[in-house]
């Protein structure tokens, strides 16, 4: 759909203050750890110091005897007989027969103060029988690797594969060998990326309460209160509807707060302590050791290219470990890695592998950054070899609407070509570079997601509107949903209050994930507003004694649709709302669906770096993000998503990594050692919002949250090669590795 088919908007596309701004700049906003209740207990968790160990014996008697200790729990306090992902979640919440990674919970305590709970934890005696462990994904599929769990493989894994392979996939089309035969240049390389953490600044925190009657409540920082409810009740064997979950403000999530880690512990402790509320707040070290990092990856890519840059064939074989449980995003990585390119011959092979690490969680475009690092790096090297401009190569092979995606289906409306052209036109590309400087370009992709969505809208007595949504606001979605609702109702932005509500207030919602909040909750809010408008038109028609069909809604008021309908002055939303009690009762609108019309988002990044040849340190001089938003409802928060994604990608590329010792213990579990980008590491991050509206959304939204983390990894590797001549195929590209690569090529 062409852009000019969308009419001009009054509010959509403007930049008003966010509704939660005042609370957040004054310290009033309440996050996970900010709430307390009368009689509240504090919890602390004992965690395994071993990467892999049999739990021979746990003695909690000394802890139980300590004054102020109200409950101590181990796995013995959980129900048995769970299967599938429910069992995985339970096992990850509290170790059973074996501790599967450094930081795996083995016992928990609730006491009258935080310090008392911590003292009690130190009194718990655990006898471990240390077992051999495996950390690296390639080591985990070697024949002599310790087996993490017998029988964990699902039906996709053929007989005879290594026991730590738990899921296997192959897909593709055409004939890749014929494609390679057609090429002027065929290159094949192996790439590795380490696990990184989402690194939200707010540690996981909750306050749970559960009575002997099986009724409970929880306050928790989460991306999805219904997921918390479903998973906690499954792990504890409770009835789902008996747990009421209220989401706090959320201090970042990036996918890491779409699941449970320690939340059931607060409920189980509360029940054992006679129903007193129990607050459980993770330390940073707990967060890094025991909550979802992303997977680590080992990837082989082979590509064939003609002299003119046409890609003739492509093959990717990815191995990813997602910790001691199935679920690495190897499938998504494969789907995304060739997604920008029109390919006749393409083959993908993927292995999901177990290792003695924490259970991975989603992290912003899960899988896509790793796949892009491998594919976009190799494409760049091939362009250099053939003397083809990397942007022209991408434009030549770029997918367009109607093309078949590398992963199977046909694309609907997409804006990759527009994104690449906007990149090409940007002034950053013509800035001259100095010695030891290099420019790198890479593309990236994310599908975006729909998901179960339930929204309720109610008109208040004064003609303002409240919208109840189930998707926690992680980056400004209350502002964007208020803008779309106000635009639809024809009322000021300030007249709409969007509330993120608890599980008792709406039908099931999936979390804020998959870049879906503004797309899915926004779309549902617009439909709900439409229902309210229909009702308000009916009320006006009744007042006027005309057919409801003859009433239209214009600028926040009902009016007769043309002279034939009758001559009445417009009846405003405030007038209709003011007397709704006497004209038929409350006016509201609801919408429940798994929305169709998801629009995919492509991006292209350009980075300029300078590499110090003495130290190998890379400085980011300039950074440009170009991405298709569909339509930017609140452009400032779209830019914020682009800039934030780029910063996380830069951290992944240059600094961040899980570092394990020979003993399988995580060596960098504090922010001093797990170093995320700080303000002085980065320049301003330039953005271009490309708008190829998504015809599947009433205001053209695609969803913008995730794509931006994907291109930085390869873009920076490509820039480093231009600056130094050295090609880095392993992340992070830290100074020692860059220096070694420069020395290896004799520079």
């Amino acid at each position, binding site marked *: 759909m062409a852009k000019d088919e969308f009419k001009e908007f009054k509010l959509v596309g403007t*930049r008003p*203050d*966010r509704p*939660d*701004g*005042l*609370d*957040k*700049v*004054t*310290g*009033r*906003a*309440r*996050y996970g*750890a*900010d709430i*307390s209740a009368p009689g509240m207990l504090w919890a602390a968790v004992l965690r395994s110091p071993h990467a892999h160990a049999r739990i021979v014996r746990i003695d909690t008697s000394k802890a139980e005897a300590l004054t102020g200790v109200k409950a101590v729990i181990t796995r013995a306090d959980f129900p048995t007989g769970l299967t599938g992902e429910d069992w995985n979640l339970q096992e990850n919440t509290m170790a059973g027969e074996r501790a599967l990674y450094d930081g795996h919970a083995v016992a928990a305590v609730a006491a009258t*103060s*935080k*310090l008392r709970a911590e003292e009690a934890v130190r009194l718990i005696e655990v006898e471990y029988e240390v077992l051999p462990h495996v950390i690296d994904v390639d080591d985990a599929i070697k024949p002599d690797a310790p087996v993490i769990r017998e029988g964990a493989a699902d039906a996709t894994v053929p007989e005879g594969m290594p026991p730590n392979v738990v899921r296997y996939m192959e897909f593709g089309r055409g004939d890749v060998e014929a494609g390679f035969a057609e090429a002027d240049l065929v290159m094949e390389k192996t790439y590795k990326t380490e696990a990184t953490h*989402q690194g*939200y*600044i*707010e*540690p996981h925190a909750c306050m749970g309460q559960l009575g002997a009657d099986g009724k409970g409540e929880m306050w928790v920082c989460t991306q999805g209160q219904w997921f918390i409810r479903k998973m906690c009740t499954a792990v504890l064997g409770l009835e789902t509807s008996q747990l009421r979950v209220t989401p706090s*403000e*959320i*201090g*970042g*999530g*990036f996918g890491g707060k779409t699941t449970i880690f320690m939340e059931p512990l607060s409920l189980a402790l509360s029940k054992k302590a006679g129903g007193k509320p129990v607050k459980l*707040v993770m*330390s*940073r070290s707990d967060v890094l050791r025991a909550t979802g990092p992303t997977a680590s990856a080992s990837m082989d890519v082979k590509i064939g290219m003609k002299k003119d840059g046409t890609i003739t064939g492509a093959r990717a074989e990815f191995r990813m470990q997602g910790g001691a449980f199935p679920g690495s995003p190897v499938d998504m990585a494969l789907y995304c890695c060739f997604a920008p390119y029109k390919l006749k011959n393409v083959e993908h092979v993927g292995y999901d592998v177990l290792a003695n690490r924490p259970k991975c969680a989603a992290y912003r475009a899960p899988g896509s950054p790793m796949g892009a690092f491998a594919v976009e790096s190799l494409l760049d090297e091939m362009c250099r070899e053939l003397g083809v401009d990397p942007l022209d190569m991408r434009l030549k092979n770029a997918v367009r609407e109607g093309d078949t995606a590398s992963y199977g289906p046909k694309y609907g409306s997409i804006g990759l070509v527009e994104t690449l052209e906007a990149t090409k036109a940007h002034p950053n590309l013509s800035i001259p570079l100095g010695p030891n400087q290099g420019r790198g370009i890479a593309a990236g992709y994310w599908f975006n997601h729909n998901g179960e969505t339930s929204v309720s809208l109610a008109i208040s007595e004064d003609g303002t509107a409240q919208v109840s949504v189930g998707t926690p606001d*992680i*980056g*400004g979605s209350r502002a964007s949903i208020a803008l779309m609702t106000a635009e639809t109702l024809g009322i000021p932005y300030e007249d709409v209050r969007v509330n993120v509500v608890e599980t008792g207030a709406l039908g099931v919602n999936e979390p804020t994930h998959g870049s879906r909040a503004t797309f899915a909750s926004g779309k549902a809010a617009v439909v709900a507003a439409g229902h309210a408008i229909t009702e308000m038109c009916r009320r006006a028609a009744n007042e006027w004694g005309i057919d409801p069909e003859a009433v239209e809604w214009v600028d926040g008021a009902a009016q007769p649709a043309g002279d034939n309908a009758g001559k009445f002055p417009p009846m405003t939303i405030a007038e209709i709302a003011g007397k709704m009690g006497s004209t038929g009762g409350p006016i509201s609108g609801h919408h429940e669906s798994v929305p169709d019309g998801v629009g995919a988002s492509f991006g292209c990044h350009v980075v300029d770096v300078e590499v110090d040849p003495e130290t190998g340190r890379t400085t980011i001089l300039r950074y440009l993000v170009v991405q298709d938003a569909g339509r930017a409802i*609140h452009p*400032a*928060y779209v*830019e*914020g998503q682009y*800039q*934030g994604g*780029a*910063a*996380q990608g830069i951290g992944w590329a240059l600094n961040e990594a899980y570092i394990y010792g020979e003993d399988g213990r995580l060596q960098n579990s*504090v*922010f*001093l050692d797990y170093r*995320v*980008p*700080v*303000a*002085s*590491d*980065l320049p*301003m*991050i330039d953005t271009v919002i490309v708008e190829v509206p998504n015809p599947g959304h009433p205001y053209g939204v695609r969803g913008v949250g995730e794509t931006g983390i994907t291109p930085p990894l390869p873009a920076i590797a490509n820039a480093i090669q231009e600056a130094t001549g050295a090609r880095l195929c392993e992340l992070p590209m830290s100074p020692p590795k860059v220096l070694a690569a420069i020395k290896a090529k004799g520079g």
Partner: protein
Amino acid sequence: MSKVHVTTSVNGDEVEFLADPRETLLDCLRDHIGLTGSKEGCGTGDCGACSVTLDGTLVCSCLVLGVEADGKRVETIEGMADGAELHPLQRKFIEHAALQCGFCTPGILVAAKKLLETNPNPTEEEIRYWLAGNLCRCTGYDKIIRAVMDAAAELRQEAA
């Protein structure tokens, strides 16, 4: 362990509490006085989310013991606005969309306020280095830096 009686001034108000000698100033602010605007992101002084000033010195309140606040002046995010009137930094953070999740925002505002008291006309680079101890994972810092520069310009104009 027996508790220690602490008398201190928080945002201009006299405050008393009983602190376990092992408790940090951050614990005391949050759990004894109910001022939860200062956040714990790391507990090791690396993230700056708990930034407050102690007798005018910018500190990570997770690295200060509660008992050390005895007889001292503590300023937190809750004392930054003058009644209903926001500090220009607070206003500019909202205007520039310089926050997403908002968890790091209190600490960054407290640190930035101290910067502008020390250096009313900082360069971009000076702001970046001053705030290098305050982690933000959402924004990439771009809009934060712009908001601080804009607030600094406004404060200079007010002062002129």
